[in-house]
């Protein structure tokens, strides 16, 4: 991270440097729990991207599942208790 290869290409953003990509990939690595728990700094970039895709897909699935349950919740509870739950969770 300290060595900056001075590749002076065209000053426009037509060429993205390796360092930039590596930087962003390492940031992603921090966000994904699976890779972070393995404590390996040198996870390959393609692995990080793959795990990222899987992670996002899992999150989408979770949103889907939770919204399914929430829609059931809306039906079963009456207005007052739902609002009480809402206010309580907002304070959390």
């Amino acid at each position, binding site marked *: 991270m300290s060595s900056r290869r001075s590749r002076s290409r065209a000053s426009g953003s037509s060429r993205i440097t390796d360092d930039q990509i590596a930087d962003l990939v390492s940031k992603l690595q921090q966000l994904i729990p699976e890779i972070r728990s393995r404590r390996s700094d040198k996870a390959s970039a393609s692995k990080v991207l793959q795990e990222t895709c899987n992670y996002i897909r899992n*999150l989408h699935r979770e949103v889907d599942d939770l919204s399914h349950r929430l829609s059931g919740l809306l039906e079963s509870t009456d207005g007052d208790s739902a609002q009480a739950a*809402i206010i309580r969770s*907002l304070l959390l």
Partner: protein
Amino acid sequence: MKSTSPQNPNPLKKKLASRFLKAMKKLSHKISSSPSPPSTAERRRRHRAVRAAAYASMASAVGPRRAWSRALLRKLRSKATATSGRKTARRNPRNIGTRFLGLNELCDVVPGGKAMDSCSLLSETGHYIKCLRAQVQIMREILDSSSSSSSSRIL
């Protein structure tokens, strides 16, 4: 790293929570005014409405600051007006094919990803993941708090 303890509330999370809860309130009023036994189609519609509310509150809480939220807002608005045809042709993704194959998958998953270059795609992904995580947490908290209250009523 931001601590996610309840004593230190994330401002983004609060914003997400308030928007999502408002949307849920609106939905619950709509539901309570309709006849009680819902058909399967009606249940499916409500499920989709809740999910759309989740993504809509995510996108509106972040606002036009991020490319993914802009793309999401566009998509949600176009769905609301029920225009099925895609007017804007998808431009070729710049610089994506040059390096990693994984970026092709990633741009499918992140909203608006196909029109971004590699750098923006990666930074947008990070922010998108943060917001998704916060949204999931909020939804879980709502479910937990309501289930705990209802169980105290039943017993």
